[in-house]
Structures are given as structure tokens and as C-alpha cells.
């Protein structure tokens, strides 16, 4: 029931916000998110870490018997940690909206809470249709958040965001329904949308069928991640969204895609994912490098961080398609770490925007002398994002690359095989050292663009936009949501803003210095997922080696 509570608390909060006067909206939202956070911590304590790969706190109730659709929730350690992340970012989002959102507060906080409920639902679902419902329903609150409280180009950003993701997910739905139909057809008309049940029958599909399923599912989930050719909605949505929207988008919404790939693509198209891993990993690497290069030429700080998400999620996907323990573990850790550090970067940029109403690097510079506290945090989170050893980014980035490096007994594909013999420590998988090597250049690019940005904005000579000297704010702000509250903000961060950032910083440090507890919790679930992929790929109807129209031996 604790999972149902985690979904219901924000929903009830939203209802409460909707019926109570506008002045108390923020307090109610804060309360609801804090309660949800507390409950999620209780859940984390009660979680049985010896059975981390099993679905715990499971609750199921029938819904549509004709389809075997149930309201069924449960978590293993992978979904558990993502729910924790979601619940942690809840109060952060409310806190960072205090002065930024002054109009239509009731609507704002209600939808923010609905969004949290939907995201929690995605991670908690054990039923495909329930998952899809929550997955799709995240679009509505985000659409509203962007189009009501975004900056100047918000309408276009919101529409683009919605249409991209909706189109993708409708095609993904077709793929998911095909998997369910296949199960029903095999089992004589017993429909089920239970994820584990479907996973167990997915290897009955031929490699060809799995290929189509993979394509359909990736059409939906790759857009959400976003993977390289379908990433174009993300920078726009990030740039236009209000701060809290960007934090949620980077922190959790993108992880819906990666999580879905891990859960569903791995489960329903095992043979195909093994076969197409090199292609998908290549796309990820293109995203890493292309995203990084674009970051380099950005002058808008927020856009820079947005594009850096494309690059970072590239690492996450690369680790995932390594299809081995360290790769997938790194990938899951990356989901959490990226949520923490990039979420924090968006918070920091939001704080600057509230003060100066600009995000242009041309108008900002040398803020260290003016805002030492802000600058400290900025440098800290940039380092976390770059992957400085000792901070969280390093752990996951290293694991992802290690996974890719080891993911084959050969050096790579084709001609490179002649370079060296079999590698020590190699695991099953279709990638190889060259993938890790090329992705590694992305780390360097990331260091360059992020440090360049930091050098410009934090150090250097003090540069403030005209009319925004110390203590005089508020003459030109385009967005609807930036009204009269600037004057309450001090030059440097106030206590609320520091309190918002400190937990994120502490977690970054903790996950960087001592990731062992988290790694230990995740390992059983991750190795379970990896093992299942390889086993099911091996038992799929057409063995890949045969490559023909055979049946299962």
C-alpha cells in the first residue's frame, strides 16, 4: 500500500490545492511533497535489500478483465531509487518556485503535484497499461507548466514537446499491445499486461518480430530519453520551461525513457536488443559528441545545460546497451546522478534568471565576486556534471564506459578485430573498447564546454546586464511569471535557495565518495535484468547465429 500512498499523496495534495485559496497553495504543495518524501524514505528503509530484484510492496487489483489489465504496482531496487529521486525533487521544485511563480499559483502547484504522482506511477507500475497511462499522463502537466509559466517561446516549445513525445508513445503503444497480443495468442486467449508475465513469453517471438517490437518501442522511448536524431524537442522545452519544469524534466522525465528501455525493450525484445546494441550505442555516441559540440557554441546558459543533457543521456544509453553488469549499473546510477547534478544546474540558472532576467553568457560574467555562495555551488555542480572523481558523475560515467569497453570479447566490429586478441574481463555484448574510446572524447568535450561556461560566468571580470546592478532588478523581464518579487531577493542566495541546493550537493558528494550501499542495492536487480536479456535472447525463436527462419531448438 505504501506505493499507492506515494501516488495518492501528491494527487490528494493537488486536490487540496485546487479547493483551497490561492495563498496557501505553496504551503500545501510543500507539505504534500515533504510527506511523500518521508513516506518514500520509510519505504526505502522497509525495502528488503536481500531481495532487491524482486517486486516488493506489491498491490494488485483487477481493472479490465477482458484485457487482463490490472492496477498493479510494485518496485525493485531500480524503480525504487528512481521513485526516491522523484520524491526528493518534489519539495525542491516547490521551493525553487517560491518567488519565480507569482501568477496562477493554484494551477501551478496542483499540476506540479499531479506530475509527481504520474511520474511515481510510471516507476511503480507492474502493469503495462498502467505504466502507459502514467507515462502519457506526464505530458499534460508538463505541457501546462511550459505553456503557462515558460519564457517567450513557450507555446511552440510546449506543442513541440507534446507532439514529439505523444507521436512516439502511440507507436510504442502499438508495440506494447503487440507483445501482449502475442502472449495472449500463445496462451490461448489469456490476456495479460503484467510485465513479468509478458517478459517470460517474449522469447517466443521470432527475431524478426522482436526487431519490429524494438523499433516500435524505441520510437516512443528514444524520443523521451532523448536519443540522437529525435532529441530536437528537448533543448527548446528545457529553455522555455520554468525552473521547476526544467528540474523535473531533466531530473525525472527523461529517465522515464531510459527506465522504459531498461524495463520493456530489454524484456520484450531481448534478441533484438542484443543484435541492435551496436547501432543504438552508436546513436548514443553520436549524441554524446554532437550534443557536446553544440554545447560548446551556446551563449544561452540554460540551452547549454539542456544540450549537455543530450550528451549525458548518451552516456546513460551507451552503458545500457553494453548489456553487462557494470554498463547497466552505471546507466541506472547515471539516471540518478544526472537528475541530481543537472537538476541542480537548472536550479542555479533559474536563480540567476530571477535576478538578472537573462541567461546569456554575453551579459553575465565574473559573478564570483558578487555571488560567492552561488558561485561555490555552481562550480561544485559543474564538477559533478563533468565527472570529477570524488563526485557522483564520475562513478556512473566510469561504469558506463567500463561496461562498453568490456561488452565484447573482441575490440569492436569489423576491421578493428585484427588489432588485438580477446580482451581480459570481457563480457557478453556487442560493443567493445572502441565504443568506450570514442565516447571518452565526449568526456573531454564536456569538460571543455562546462568549464568554459563556468570560467565565463563565474570568474572573469564582473559583467551584469544593463540596469541590473546591485539591488536594482526588474525593468525588463519578458515572461509572464516574473512580476514583482525580485526586490525580495538579495544579491547572493538567500537561505531558502541554499536549503534547496544543500541536499542535492550532499547526495552528489555521498554518491561520489561512497556509492557502495546504492551499488549493492542495485546490483541484484541489474544483474537480474542483464541475465534475463541474455538468457531470453539465447532462447528466442530464431537463434541469432542461425539468422534464418528456424524454430527454437
Amino acid at each position, binding site marked *: 500500500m505504501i506505493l499507492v500512498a506515494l501516488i495518492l499523496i501528491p494527487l490528494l495534495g493537488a486536490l487540496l490545492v485546487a479547493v483551497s485559496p490561492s495563498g496557501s497553495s505553496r504551503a500545501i504543495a510543500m507539505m504534500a511533497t515533504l510527506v511523500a518524501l518521508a513516506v518514500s524514505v520509510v519505504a526505502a528503509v522497509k525495502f528488503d535489500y536481500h531481495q532487491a530484484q524482486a517486486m516488493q510492496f506489491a498491490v494488485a487489483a*483487477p*481493472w*479490465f*478483465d*477482458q*484485457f487482463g489489465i490490472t492496477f498493479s504496482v510494485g518496485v525493485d531496487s531500480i524503480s525504487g531509487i528512481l521513485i526516491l529521486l522523484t520524491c526528493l525533487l518534489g519539495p525542491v521544485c516547490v521551493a525553487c518556485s517560491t518567488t519565480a511563480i507569482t501568477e496562477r499559483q493554484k494551477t501551478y502547484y496542483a499540476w506540479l503535484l499531479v506530475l509527481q504522482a504520474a511520474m511515481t506511477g510510471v516507476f511503480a507500475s507492474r502493469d503495462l*497499461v498502467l505504466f*502507459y*497511462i502514467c507515462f*502519457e*499522463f506526464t*505530458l*499534460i502537466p508538463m*505541457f*501546462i507548466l511550459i*505553456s*503557462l509559466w515558460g519564457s517567450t517561446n513557450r507555446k511552440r516549445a510546449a*506543442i513541440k514537446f*507534446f*507532439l514529439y513525445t*505523444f*507521436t512516439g508513445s*502511440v*507507436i510504442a*503503444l*502499438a508495440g506494447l*499491445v*503487440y507483445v*501482449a*497480443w502475442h502472449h*495472449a*495468442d500463445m496462451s490461448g*486467449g489469456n*490476456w495479460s499486461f503484467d510485465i513479468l508475465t509478458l517478459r517470460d513469453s517474449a522469447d517466443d517471438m521470432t527475431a524478426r518480430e522482436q526487431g519490429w517490437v524494438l523499433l516500435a518501442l524505441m520510437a516512443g522511448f528514444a524520443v523521451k530519453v532523448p536519443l540522437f536524431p529525435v532529441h530536437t524537442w528537448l533543448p527548446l522545452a528545457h529553455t522555455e520551461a520554468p525552473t521547476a519544469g526544467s528540474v523535473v524534466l531533466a531530473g525525472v522525465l527523461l529517465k522515464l525513457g531510459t527506465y522504459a528501455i531498461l524495463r520493456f525493450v530489454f524484456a520484450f525484445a531481448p534478441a533484438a536488443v542484443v543484435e541492435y546494441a551496436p547501432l543504438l550505442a552508436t546513436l548514443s555516441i553520436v549524441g554524446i559528441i554532437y550534443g557536446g559540440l553544440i554545447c560548446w557554441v551556446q551563449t544561452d546558459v540554460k540551452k547549454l545545460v539542456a544540450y549537455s543533457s543530450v550528451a549525458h543521456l548518451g552516456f546513460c544509453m551507451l552503458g545500457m546497451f553494453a548489456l553487462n553488469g557494470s554498463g547497466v549499473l552505471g546507466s541506472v546510477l547515471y539516471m540518478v546522478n544526472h537528475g541530481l547534478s543537472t537538476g541542480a544546474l537548472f536550479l542555479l540558472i533559474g536563480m540567476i534568471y530571477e535576478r538578472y532576467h537573462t541567461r546569456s553568457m554575453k551579459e553575465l560574467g565574473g559573478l564570483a565576486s558578487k555571488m560567492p555562495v552561488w558561485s561555490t555551488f555552481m562550480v561544485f555542480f559543474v564538477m559533478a556534471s563533468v565527472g570529477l572523481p570524488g563526485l557522483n558523475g564520475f562513478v556512473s560515467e566510469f561504469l558506463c564506459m567500463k561496461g562498453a569497453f568490456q561488452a565484447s570479447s573482441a575490440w569492436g566490429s569489423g576491421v578493428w578485430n585484427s588489432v588485438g586478441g580477446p580482451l581480459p574481463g570481457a563480457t557478453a555484448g556487442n560493443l567493445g573498447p572502441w565504443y568506450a574510446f570514442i565516447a571518452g572524447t565526449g568526456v573531454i568535450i564536456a569538460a571543455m564546454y562546462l568549464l568554459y561556461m563556468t570560467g565565463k560566468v563565474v570568474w572573469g571580470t564582473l559583467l551584469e546586464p544593463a540596469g541590473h546592478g546591485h539591488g536594482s532588478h526588474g525593468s525588463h523581464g519578458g515572461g509572464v511569471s516574473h512580476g514583482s518579487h525580485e526586490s525580495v531577493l538579495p544579491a547572493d542566495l538567500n537561505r531558502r535557495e541554499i536549503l534547496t541546493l544543500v541536499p542535492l550537493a550532499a547526495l552528489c558528494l555521498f554518491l561520489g565518495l561512497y556509492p557502495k550501499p546504492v551499488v549493492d542495492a542495485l546490483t541484484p536487480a541489474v544483474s537480474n535484468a542483464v541475465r534475463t536479456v541474455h538468457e531470453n535472447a539465447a532462447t528466442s525463436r530464431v537463434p541469432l547465429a542461425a539468422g534464418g527462419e528456424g524454430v527454437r531448438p
Partner: protein
Amino acid sequence: MIERLAYMYPEIALFITTCVVMVVGLSRVQATRNATAVMAGLGIVIAGVLAFVTTPTGADAADKAAGQVLLPNLAMYMKVVIAGVGLLLLLVQAGTVDRVEEGLISAGARGYDALRANRAEYYAFFLFSLTGLMLCASADSLIWLFLALELTSLPTYIMVTISSARNKSREAGVKYFFLGALGAAVFLYGFALLYGGTGSTNLNQIAFSFSAHGINSIAMAGLLVSILGLCFKIAAVPMHFYTADVYEGAAPQVSGFLAFVPKAAGFIALMLVLSAAGWRFERGAAAPSLSDVLQGGVTRASEFGHSLPESVRLMLWVIAALTMTIGNVLALLQTSVKRTLAYSSIAHSGYMLVGLIAGPADSFARSGIAAVLFYLLSYGVMSTGTFAVLAALERRAGPDGEAREVDQMDDLRGLTATQPVLGWVMTICSLSLLGLPPLLGFFGKLPLFTSAIHAKEYVLVVVLGINSAIAAFYYLRLAFLPFLEKKDEFVEVVGVSPFPSRVLGAVVSAAGVIVLAVVGGRVMDTVQSAATTGVQAGPMPAIEPVHAKTTGEPGV
């Protein structure tokens, strides 16, 4: 013949109500006249209850040896749905006609003049159309089907014409009438060919003839022509041209009526005709190729492997794909809400055609018929909600006393701020039409997906998916204009019409969209039994052979 009565209690109840309404509506006492709508509502409720209680189903239906045995349980489900959605539609019709006239009478400016009043006729036509629709559901012969379809349609021509005082309504009525007559002529011609090819107008006997002797070329031509003609009723390409103009010209509450009633009639008729043509046959055998069917003249029943004769399937396939795509793409270009909804209604017909192509199966999730039947209910509720919002809004009366209706997208801007209830109904119903989970529209579309996948119509599934995405664009506009946008300063204020039942209709629809999504599982059980075909495979019992007629035995 007398046993047919067992199927007709709801229609009889509706007919009696109609007669009462025609008299009461002409009363000289205003209070009595005002009770007309209430009586019509009562009649619909009684008809619905009667349909639920008295309609023979299953084995009972076979005992009666009456009615069609192809889809023996169709009548009960459809009639209950018709009564339910009909009641919703009735709520929205309040004050459509005689509004100015009654206002003048109340003010004492004019005495009651039966010749000027339209109320009695309007409600009578409304009920007649519903009666026709119910008769469609229990039709067992082509002649019956034709008469029922015409009884459904003829009143709507007049309802469109008198629905508002604008010339546009008259134009729409005339256009609708002539094109409707053309459509009727086409499917009547098809029915005639079917009779020519099989020697019977009885659907059971036609089915028997097809399964015994195959479909000869005359009957095949008849099938194709009747499907084409019925496309007019469901507003499918290429018979869709009237839709946008007629919906735009009619008052919104009448457009809402048109979006459900003729469409449901068309789909029932299509289901009956198609189930006579195929569907009963077991899957698995190789389907005859199109050229075989076209050249061979006669196709043996045993050769049918696919759910439908290939040429019929191909025709439906093309119509479905075109209907979805054209409807959605043209809906993108509209600025009028009614035209948008009209094109979207075309698109929804295309979605439902996918279910018809998938055909029947043994479980709800696989049966295309069940999907269509459930979708008809979902679509009826959702689209009535959107039209009800339009009907409940109006600008204050102009110099002619006629309140002007609200039809431009821009009029909906910021609606939620001034009319929160109607704004939210618009948002909910539009999102449901879009198919966004967890609203009703999603659970309507899901069986279409599953049944089409079961029938291995993968390309159609993709077309359906892409079209749902195209539709997102204009439904998002409809859903969020009221909620997110600010009212334009220069656009005149939009108020609520003085008929609370229209608002009630809108609210009930929106509530239905949510409630049915939660308890939909129960409904689906009923739908599945309604979608049961008389014979799943093998020979058909309880059908007299065609030659029975010639030997002088009494026909069924």
C-alpha cells in the same frame, strides 16, 4: 410475424411517446408545452428499460426463430446505448426551436399560434430518428434495414433545417437532404443487387446462400455498392463531403445528434451486411486473391480464409485508411470548432472501420466488432460532451432576437476563467477524443489496436497510430484554448445559454468519460456478448435454405 413483436417493445414505446409528444407540444397551455421534452425523456428511458428487459438474447432469440441470427445479441446492447446517448442528446436539445416565439408569448406580445410553433415537430422528429436507429439494430432483412435507415435519416434533414433561424441552417439542410438521398439511392441499389444475386432480402438467408453457394458477381457488386452507400451514413471517404458544411450549418446540439445517430445507424447496417457476407468462417484457410474473386465470378464459401471476402476487405481497408487520414488532416486546417469536430468525426469513423475489418473473434480483446460497439458508446459520450459545450455557450441575442452561437476556436479562449464547468468539460472531452489515457477514449481505442493486431492488419495499426498523433494537434488546441489562453480583448463576451439542461448534458458527458473509464470492464462484458456472432464456425443452424421460399413455405 407476431414473434417479431418481442424485439420491438422499445420502438413501440418510442413511437407512442412520439405521438403523445406531437399532441402535447401543440398545447395552448405553455406549462403543458414545456413538458414536451420531459415526456420525450421519459419515453426514451422507458424504451431503454424495455430494451434491457424484453429483448430476447442468446438461446431465447433462437427459440423465437425471429430476428437475425448473425449478430443475435446486437439489438439489446445497441438499443440500451441508443437510449442512453439519446437521453444525453435530448438534454442538449432544450430550447432549440421556438425560443424567440415562446419568449414573445411569455411577454404577452403574442398569442400562441400552432402554425408558428415547431416544438412538437422537433421533438417528434428527434424521437422518430431514435426509433429508426433502434429499428436498425433489430433489422433482419434488407427492406427493413433500408426503411429503418431512412426513418433515422429523414427527420434529421428537417432537424438541421429548423435548428436555427440562420440561412446557413437551411442551406445545410438542403445540402444534407440531396446528398443523403444520393447516398440512400446508392445503398438501395446495392441492396437490390444483393437481392438479385441471392434471391432473398432476408439477411439470414443471404448469409446461408453465401455460405452454401458462394458469392456470385452480382451479389459481390451489391455488397460493394451497399458498403459505399452506407459510407454516407458514417461519413466516410468518399461520401464525406457533406459533413463539415452540414455540421457547421446546423445548431451545435443538432450537429452532436448527427455525429452519433446516423453514424451508429450506418455502423449497425454495415455490421449486418458484412456479417452476412463473411466473418462466420473460420480463420486459417488461405484467402482467395483479389483477382480470383474478380475473375472467378463465384467464390466458394470454403475458400474464404480471411474474415471477409478479399475485395470487400480491400475496399474497407482503403476507405478506412483514407477516412482517418483525410479527416484528421483536414481537421487541422479548421478555425471553426464545429468544422473541426466534423472532420474529427470523419476520422473517428475511420478508426471504427478498422474494427470492422478486424471482424469478430471469441474474446473482447480480439473482436473487432466488440471494439466498434464499445467505441460507438465511447464516441457518443465524448462527442456529445464537446457539442454540448458549444450548445451551452452563446452570445447575447442580436436585434433579431436570435442568440448567436459560438463556433470559432478563438471564442473558446480563456473559457475556463469565465465558465469553469464548461471549460473543463471541453478539456476533458477533447482529451478523451484524442485518446489520452486514462480517459474513456483510450480504452475505446485499445480494443481497436488489439483486434487489428489479432487480425494481422499491422499496416492499419500503424496508420491508426499516426492518425492519433495527427489528431493530437487539433485536440490539444480544443482542450487547452479554454484553459491556457487568455481571452482576446476584442472578442465579444461569451455567456451561458439560459437552458441549464444543456450544461447538465455537458457535465454528464464529461462525467461519463471518466466513470466509464473506471468501470469500463463491466461494460465490456456486455459488449462482448453483444458482439457474439450467431455462428463462429461450421454450418449455420436455424436458417431456412433459400429454396424454402419457392416451395411455398412461409418466409421468416
